[in-house]
Each structure stands twice: as structure tokens, then as C-alpha cells.
């Protein structure tokens, strides 16, 4: 399994186009306190021009990890060869360390939904995802991991719990986990389980990276918007996660209603301070 050499890159944020000038200024990595950048495959891989240049320029200044929403690892159609080619091309151009996508399906029957559609928590679905993840791994040039997504409906007759489902497919796929702590919190609230028990039930040694984000409390449901600051509850859950995983690459996501870069950096520093609370001073593992 590949997680043995997965790096602890520190604390990073996503390369969003409005932030590019700030993030790619000389010495920005040191001045801004951003240790690495995550690039969304769908936003950069198919395109040339400024987007292509920004990705390559970012790779000259920061360690890069790739993230996606389009692999559709749980989907019914064959894996998309064009997607995998684009991923490979971007990975080679940026020297990215790993790629992650979500445990979901996002396309099927020849249609792209551009969304993270939930899978039933069944052994059949876990095996389906694991088989396709292994196939994808054999066709790309960097390690692949999976993220626990937020979900708003739970297929009622599925026999497994979410964490049983996740652990089964991680084991069968033999891959790493991008643990989205905000998603754990949102799902726990929406589906009525203990988020701390969920974290405790995961195999800590498979966690490659953590995502943190803000969400929207709609009253009847929490929506994983990536459009707000982290709540203190999510930050507490992150501290709990670190007690199990130790130092782990942590990325704060802000994708909608983008605020000034400085606001995102504040969140990044909140995460860093929380990690320091738990771990003390730490040496990153490049």
C-alpha cells in the first residue's frame, strides 16, 4: 500500500483563480503561511492559456496535490479515458504528489452530473468502487485516494453503516483516505450519529490528508457549501482526528462566495493553531 510514504505537507488551501496573484507572488509561500496547494482537476486539466500557466507556476513554488469530482468511481459507465488522460497530463506537469476524488458517482449513462451522488452502503457498492479504484490506479501515474463525501440521503435498505462501508472499500481497494472532517460533522448531524465515534472507527494509518471547510445550517439540514468559515465544532473534531493520525496534510476549502484571500488564510491559520495545540511544534515530511 502507498500510504507509507505519504508526506505531511502542513497546511494548504485550494488554488482558486482570484487568489492566484496573491499565492504566486514571490515569497508568497513563506509570507502567507501556505505550505501546499490543491488543484482541482476539472478546473485546470482540460484548459490551456492562463489556467495551464497558473497550475505550472504554482508547482514551481508549492508542493501540489490534485483533487477531483469527475472520476465517478462509483458510476455505472466505464472509467472515462479522457479524464484519466487529463489527470495524468496535469500530474506530470505539476509533479503532484497524489490525487483524490470522492466515494460517489458523478456521471452515468453518458451524462455528467457534476455532483457527488450518494452510493448505497452495500457490499456490492463497496466492491464496485474498490474494483474501479484499482483499475484507475493502474492507469494513472500518481497515488489515488478517496474522500468521504457529504450526503443528504441514505438509501434505507442498505445493510452497512457509513463507516463500515468506507472501511470495507478502503480495505478492498487498498488505498488512502482523504478524511473530510467537515463532511463527517455534516453527515453526523444530518443522519444522527456520533462524529467522534466515526473518526475512531476509521483506520488512522490510511489517512493521507484532511479537508476542512465551512457549511450552511439550513435548520432542517446542514449543507456542505464550502462557503463559510469553519465552526468551532468542526475544529474540535479536527483536533480529535489529529490525536489519532498525528501530523497530517490539512487543506482548508473555500469554493463558493469566495472572500478575500486574507479570510481564507485566517482559516488556514486557525487549522494550523489547532494542530499546534494537539501536536506541538512539528517537522513536516516532504
Amino acid at each position, binding site marked *: 500500500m502507498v500510504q507509507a510514504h505519504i508526506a505531511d505537507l502542513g497546511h494548504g488551501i485550494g488554488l482558486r483563480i482570484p487568489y492566484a496573484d496573491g499565492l504566486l507572488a514571490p515569497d508568497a509561500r513563506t509570507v502567507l503561511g501556505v505550505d501546499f496547494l490543491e488543484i482541482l482537476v476539472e478546473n485546470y486539466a482540460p484548459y490551456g*492559456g492562463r489556467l495551464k500557466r497558473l497550475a505550472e507556476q504554482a508547482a514551481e513554488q508549492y508542493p501540489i496535490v490534485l483533487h477531483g469530482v469527475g472520476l465517478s468511481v462509483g458510476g*455505472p459507465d466505464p472509467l472515462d479515458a479522457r479524464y484519466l488522460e487529463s489527470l495524468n497530463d496535469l500530474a506530470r506537469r505539476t509533479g503532484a504528489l497524489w490525487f483524490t476524488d470522492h466515494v460517489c458517482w458523478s456521471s452515468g*449513462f453518458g*451524462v455528467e452530473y*457534476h*455532483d457527488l*451522488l450518494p452510493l448505497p452502503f452495500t457490499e*456490492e*457498492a463497496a466492491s464496485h468502487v474498490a474494483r474501479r479504484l484499482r483499475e484507475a490506479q493502474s492507469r494513472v501515474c500518481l497515488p489515488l485516494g478517496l474522500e468521504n463525501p457529504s450526503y443528504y440521503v441514505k438509501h434505507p435498505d442498505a445493510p452497512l453503516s457509513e463507516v463500515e462501508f468506507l472501511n470495507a472499500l478502503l480495505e478492498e481497494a487498498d488505498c488512502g483516505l482523504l478524511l473530510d472532517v467537515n463532511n463527517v460533522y455534516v453527515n453526523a448531524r444530518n443522519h444522527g450519529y456520533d462524529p467522534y465515534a466515526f473518526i475512531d472507527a476509521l483506520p488512522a494509518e490510511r489517512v493521507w490528508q484532511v479537508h476542512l471547510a465551512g457549511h450552511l445550517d439550513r435548520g432542517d*439540514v446542514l449543507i456542505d457549501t464550502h462557503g463559510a468559515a469553519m465552526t468551532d465544532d468542526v475544529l474540535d473534531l479536527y483536533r480529535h482526528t489529529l490525536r489519532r493520525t498525528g501530523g497530517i496534510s490539512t487543506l482548508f476549502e473555500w469554493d463558493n462566495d469566495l472572500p478575500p484571500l486574507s479570510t481564507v488564510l485566517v482559516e488556514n491559520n486557525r487549522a494550523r493553531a489547532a494542530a499546534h495545540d494537539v501536536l506541538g511544534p512539528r517537522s513536516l515530511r516532504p
Partner: protein
Amino acid sequence: MTRSLLSIQTELHALFRGQVELQTTAEALSLPVERLRIYWDFVRGHVRRALTQNFPVLVGCLPHTTFEALFEEYFRLHPPPSFAFNEAAEAFVGFLEEREGWEGHKGLRPGHAALSRFEWELSLAFHAPVEVPAVVETPCLNPTLAVLKLPFAVPRFLLNWQAGLRDQTCPLSCAPDELSLIFRHPKRETACFFAATDDLLFALAVIERGSTAEVVAEEAGLPVVSAVNAMRYAVSIGLVLDAARD
């Protein structure tokens, strides 16, 4: 009995393609309809966002109810074909061209389809995966170049809109078509457009023939100084790439 993954996906696909009602799918899958509606809204929202991002001026100048009616029909007829987000908007130009003038689309005026074509070509030029080389050995055309026939009133409308003039009337399609040149600027990496003036058409002809401004000018009986200046201008705006660009 536990449903198969494929049967669940088939049910949801039918919902998202508008083949069954939300309530029906929710009952078939024993899911709460309000929770399922979140996905219904998300999936549709991505296509709506692809349109608003690629056609910002068109969407801004259409009456809201007109855009929503067009969106509903477009979403039903043109599902996103690939992971590349912009491709969800690719069929919208042809979709509008088919509907321009339809009485069923109140608020869709002559000229809106031409405006969408123009905005789409700008988006294509900006996003084109082709490299615009930093150095060339012999002069060549900018590889992102597209030549578009439409009334100049359309780019004028777009420029005015971007400058804040929001009370203009969308240009009428009865104006004569003229040639516009659209390409990605090699240094600024933004999409830009120019009227295809005689000077720029001359520069295109020189490159197409693999010749020089001087030779083509002499053959055509044109002043050499004017021809050389036309080539310099074409290089200065990024339409023609040459070794001396930097």
C-alpha cells in the same frame, strides 16, 4: 430486499433527466423528498452556473423569466457531456439559434443568439488547450484564432455592457454581418477581438501564403510601407506571432 446499485442509479438518472417526477423517485427509493430535492437543485444548478459563467452578458441582459424558461428547456435537451465543466454550456448557442424568433420565448430578441455565439467564442479562445508559443521561427497565425461573421453591433453591445451601459437594446440581427477576429492574447492570456480591417486581412493573407509583407504588397500593387505597418500591427496585437514579438 436490498436494491442493486445499478437500479438505484437508473432511478436517479431518470429523475435528473426529467423523465420522472421528484416525488415518484423519492417514493420508489423510499427517500425523503426534501432531501432528494437538494440533489435535484445541485445538478440543475451546475448547468445553470455553466451558462451564467460562459454567457455573462447574455444572461445579464435577458429577462429573468426568459432565461429560466430557456434554461429549463436546455437542461432537458442537452445533458452535460463531459467532466470539462464548460462543455455543459457548449450546445447553448445552437439551442438559441434554433429558437430565435419563436413566439414561445418571450423576451428572446433577434441578436441574442449572435451575442451568445460571440461570448462562446471568447470563452473558447480563453480556454483553448492549444499552446500559443512564446517563440516561433517563422511568422505564423495565433493558433487560437477564430473568424466570426456577425454584426459589429454585437461586440459593441458587449463592450458597452461591460462598461456599465445596461439600458441598451440588444442588437438586431438585421444589421449586416461583418468579420471579427477572436483570439487569446499571447502575453496577457485574455480573449480579445478585433474588426477584420483591410490591414489585418492583409496580414492574414501574408501568413496564409507563407510570404512576406513586401512581396505580397508588390504583387498587389500596394505601398510597401503600409504593408509592413499592417504586419507590425498584426504582431503587436497578438494576431500574428513572430520571432521578434518580445
